[in-house]
């Protein structure tokens, strides 16, 4: 009993308890994230094929090869393009959705859960569902009613396929970001909005001058989330387009919608493990730089209460 009420012992006890509770997580984190990460860095400068025990050090050869490989450069560029499209689409759509579901319309709770539901569908399943909609249903409608732009599937147009992917991703992800926005909007004191209302500011002005500045921290989070998830997009990419169709880039046929993560996967499954690892390191560095810049820029715009 004394142990529990004494002033020093609980501290001690707490630290052991902390260690005991943290240890499984920390250990697992080290085992499955930290150690493989450094192994990955190491393998990216070797010629490892995934099995062989004799691993030779090859320096930066894997990285030099990337600079002249059209499919990798193309994947890198469309991943950036896809990410930008996604950030704009998802944030605008989910901001509008959050305004709708925080307004006084009827059944707003129903809408809140309704918009969130797509996020609960896994990316693999979602990809197949949308593939069926885009390749079969829309095309069928197009051919039946002779609507020209629906007659060919949106997924078979090399120039616009990543826009289609972004739309599908927005459909899935907007509900989740919407929740973040809703939470931010609800934490704004209603007195601010009421005061503005009394001062004669209309709804549009209130949104621009009060709502958006007040929820800037939510934008930091939402842009960070959309940026990183779009950059790492894989599951939906795999099932919706599988990287297709083909297009021409730097005078070589490449896969028009093969994002970076899928490019890495396809390289790895072709038993080019070290090369795939080098690509993964490039993805990691790019993601790190971009998200650090994004967060620091956004942080400056946040308003302290």
């Amino acid at each position, binding site marked *: 009993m004394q142990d529990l009420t004494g002033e020093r012992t609980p501290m001690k006890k707490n630290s052991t308890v902390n260690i005991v509770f943290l240890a499984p997580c920390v250990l697992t984190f080290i085992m499955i994230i930290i150690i493989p990460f450094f192994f990955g860095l190491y393998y990216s400068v070797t010629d490892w094929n995934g099995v062989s025990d004799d691993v030779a050090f090859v320096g930066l050869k894997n990285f030099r090869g990337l600079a002249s490989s059209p499919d990798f450069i193309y994947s890198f560029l469309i991943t950036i393009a896809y990410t930008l499209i996604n950030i704009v689409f998802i944030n605008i759509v989910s901001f509008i959705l959050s305004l709708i579901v925080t307004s006084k319309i009827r059944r707003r709770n129903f809408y809140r859960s309704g918009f969130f539901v797509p996020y609960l569908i896994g990316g693999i399943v979602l990809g197949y569902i949308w593939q069926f909609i885009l390749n079969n249903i829309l095309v069928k409608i197009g051919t039946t009613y002779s609507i020209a732009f629906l007659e060919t599937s949106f997924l*078979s147009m090399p120039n616009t396929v990543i826009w289609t992917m972004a739309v599908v991703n927005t459909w899935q992800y907007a509900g989740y970001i919407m929740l973040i926005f809703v939470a931010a909007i609800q934490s704004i004191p209603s007195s601010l909005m009421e005061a503005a209302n009394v001062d004669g500011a209309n709804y549009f002005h209130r949104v621009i001058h009060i709502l958006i500045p007040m929820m800037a921290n939510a934008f930091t989070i939402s842009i960070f989330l959309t940026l990183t998830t779009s950059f790492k997009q894989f599951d939906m990419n795999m099932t919706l387009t599988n990287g297709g*169709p*083909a297009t021409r880039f730097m005078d070589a*046929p490449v896969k028009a919608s093969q994002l970076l993560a899928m490019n890495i996967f396809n390289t790895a499954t072709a038993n*080019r493990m070290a090369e795939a690892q080098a690509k993964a390191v490039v993805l990691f560095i790019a993601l790190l730089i971009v998200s650090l810049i994004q967060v620091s820029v956004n942080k400056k715009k946040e308003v302290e209460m």
Partner: protein
Amino acid sequence: MKKKLLNMVAISLMLVLAAGTVFGAGTKEAEKETTVNMFQLKVEIKDAIDEYAATYSAATPGVTVKVETLGGGADYGGALKAKAQAGQMPDIFVIEGRGGYDIWKDYIADLSDQSWVADTDLAFKVDGKVYGFPVAIEGYGLAYNADILAKAGIDPAKLTTRAAYEQAFKTLEAKKAELGIDAPVAMAASVAGGMWWVAAQHNLACYWGGGLDFNDTSIIDMALQGKLDDERFLQYAKYLQLLFKYADQKILLNGSYDDQVGAFAQGKTAFLHQGNWVDPNLKQLGVTFPIGYAPHAFLDTEQTGLYLFAPSWYCVNEKSPNAEAAKAFLTAMATTAEGHDYMVNKAGMIPAFKSVKLQPAGQLSQALMAANAKGGNYGVFFGMLPDGAGQNVFGPIFDLFAQNQNNLNQFIADMKKAVANLPNM
């Protein structure tokens, strides 16, 4: 009373002793028991091979064969690597060609001394030594719906040159409405539908091996050194263009396996570019019309053979203590009546062993088996290409050609460039 007690003690002691010996013997035998672990990737034969392994285990004292099957389309190579890294390398595993051999060669046992080797033409060999047990024969030509061809007045036996095909496709195209078909051919080439392999692997194999001797690898050897045979490739490219032009465009550019096979099964196309593995799908789709195989005749000269190959081989893990038991299991599969029954009747495969006399049920498999007996077929050599060449390099080239079917020269230039880069892969 005392005697009775003593007796009882003595009897119970004896019982304990007896039980001891019995259980002791039991544990000793369990130590001798070998478990052969097999890891395979043909999900369609899972039930058949599980059953055969159980029968074999029951009939072979001291050996239990356990089969693990990786689900369809999953990354077998990756899963096998994970097993190897975890120290759980199976005793029997599958390779799909030279690429797999190069990766796993430290593990692969030499099977040259096995009794089934003399009974097959399709064992996996490197430098004259046998390393792989052929799982089955698979093969393909251009499958046709005999009813539709008969209605259109086309004799499939005459489809032995590119010119004959062009004529037949034109006839079918002209009679589309009358025959109730959407297009003459169900062909797929899209990266999006995951069908790159039909065009960039199987159709391209016509260029590698078509019209040559069964074991003639001269064309692919040349390609592996970075060169195309221009004259031959031009003829091939024209044939491919023909297939593309007369194909159902939606299936060609976007269709999945189900779309392609389904269109043929519903009588919406007269031809199907697929191998005998579609037999179970056709059965499932309730196909009743007669089907046969016409050769992929892309040359100006006559070609009559089909393309036959072993898509994968079983390899024995040399480092395993159970290697001998694993070899015995494979030998039994190839040489016993139960093994033959499993391969043909249960798994529905065409065995690569000449001594097998059973007939498979599927129409396309029967056509292949007849062709195999007749001879004059062509080898399929895409397994000799570097890993990823088909999916990542040729796949987009064929997809792009399917989108721009009139741009023959661009296709040839792209392929030339890609082949020139093969030695660096």
